[in-house]
């Protein structure tokens, strides 16, 4: 177990957004956070990264309390990808190099540049080094973001909807890269809306409703018409085929 979230309660402007959330993540885990908009997925990721302080409960990484650490130390352990990123004309390689920030003094060295190049080829974006970040497609931008996190050399990835607004090929590529990074001895928590994508790549699912984790387990245990009705309030059919799970809307 590398991450332990125990009894975390978070209030934003006197609204209780997270209510007593507890779970654990072990090495090799690829965890999907499923839940409707506003259920608290982003708040949970922000809290785990240390951006929001819980009013009670704590987040432990390797036994150390995240909220007692400096942000630069947290950034060496956790790779957080926020949902919204401003447009910038920086070159792709410079955006990736930003992942080295926790390790550099004033400016990055040639060693950092080498790490950034390696990270870019790891996500299949070699040859994009000198392109402007703002000129990339949505899928390419997210791959660059993953390269950034990869050269940040963290043990746990916190990704806030990395596949939203992407075409199906990019979605599959992004999740494939995340899976590859996890298989190298990391873990990841991914907020995601596509249940089928989640069940294809993730070994664990956490379903969040109104700031609480209401279902947790592997995809086969958790994904069924009842849980989805409960969490999302929508009627679906769950089809099992060759050991895989497919969720389709129940339309007659």
């Amino acid at each position: 177990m590398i991450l332990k979230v125990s009894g975390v309660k978070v209030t934003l402007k006197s609204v209780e957004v997270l209510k007593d959330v507890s779970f654990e993540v072990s090495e090799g885990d690829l965890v999907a956070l499923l839940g409707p908009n506003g259920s608290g997925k982003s708040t949970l990721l922000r809290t785990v990264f240390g951006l929001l302080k819980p009013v009670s409960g704590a987040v432990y990484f390797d036994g150390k309390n995240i909220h007692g650490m400096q942000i630069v130390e947290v950034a060496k352990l956790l790779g957080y990808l926020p949902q919204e990123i401003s447009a910038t004309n920086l070159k792709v390689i410079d955006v990736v190099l930003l992942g080295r920030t926790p390790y550099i003094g004033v400016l990055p060295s040639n060693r950092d540049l080498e790490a950034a190049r390696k990270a870019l080829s790891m996500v299949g974006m070699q040859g994009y080094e000198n392109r402007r970040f703002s000129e990339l497609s949505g899928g390419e931008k997210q791959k660059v973001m993953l390269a950034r996190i990869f050269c940040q050399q963290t043990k746990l990835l916190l990704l806030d909807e990395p596949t939203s607004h992407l075409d199906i090929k990019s979605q599959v590529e992004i999740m494939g890269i995340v899976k590859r990074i996890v298989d190298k001895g990391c873990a990841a928590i991914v907020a995601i809306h596509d249940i089928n994508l989640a069940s294809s790549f993730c070994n664990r699912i956490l379903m969040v409703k109104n700031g609480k984790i209401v279902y947790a387990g592997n995809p086969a245990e958790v994904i069924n018409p009842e849980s989805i009705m409960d969490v999302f309030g929508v009627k679906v059919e769950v089809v099992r085929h060759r050991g895989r799970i497919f969720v389709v809307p129940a339309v007659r």
Partner: protein
Amino acid sequence: MYASKGINQVILTIDKINLTKEGKLTPSKNIILVFGLLVVLCAASFVTSISVGSSSIGFFDVVEILLGNEANPIAYRIIIDFRLPRTVLAMLVGIGLATAGCAMQALFRNPLADPYILGVSSGASVGAALVILLGIASMQNIISAAFFSALVTAYVVYRIGRHSVYSLLLAGVAMASFLSGITSLLIYLAGKDMHQVVFWIMGGFWTANWLKVKIALFPVLFGTALIIYNSWNLNAILLGEEYAVSVGVDVDHLRKIIIACSALLTSAAVAVSGVIGFVGLIIPHAMRLIVGEDHRVLIPSAILCAAIFMPAVDVIARTVTSGELPVGIITALLGAPFFIYLLRRGRY
């Protein structure tokens, strides 16, 4: 006019570099070339600004005098006592405003942010006007009053608006109009004594001397150095505050440092030269269009560009008519069309 032609030359040359960029030239070679040109132009602007004036001193005579040749005592005194401090002051003010502009535009992620956004210029005007109204208007008093009231204004604006970038911008705008009202009131009450305050509203270098250079030197060097030191963190903040945090940047701390440095730079500039608009807004944008958004390159190139631009504009201000034109008029008349030209051919 010599130096402004020079600036156009850079743009034309860079056009050519851009054309061949897709081929072989690596970007680092481009940047070395740009910096080389900027340094040469900077030297040219420096010498031109010293040699041109009501009594022209030849280019080579200027170089000789700068190297310590006192053969012509009148020319020597003109240069050492008047032209040199004026040129150095113009460079310092330009550097301060351009660096603060770069930092503020990055911090606010707003292309309209400029060094005066914290209400510094109107704060300085109130300080100067008060000193004059109280009848204690020595040059030193005016400068220190302007400097400290500018710093206090920046601090008050920061305290009011520190919760978000938007409230900071709006607090600056509100404070600026409030203080402008006070300045106008003071001018109205004091009548004809207040022509000195008009200096702060127009801006210029015609009262430059070594004392002003001494006053501006430390704040400009210190503020600029600290902003350069944070150039990598400013890169991170381009992608958003939350993104900067995600790569380990302490954004609250960074915001305080950048705002304090900008306030220091701008207050020092305003206190010694009055309000010179446009430089802090346009030079960072112009260099961003040419060298890109990477602050490791952008800030040094904006510094060089300002050190070329400001003395060159001052040369025009003191030669284009028989008297002295306020520099702010020239920066606007020359800077705006040049910037529109860049905007039309750039990738904004």
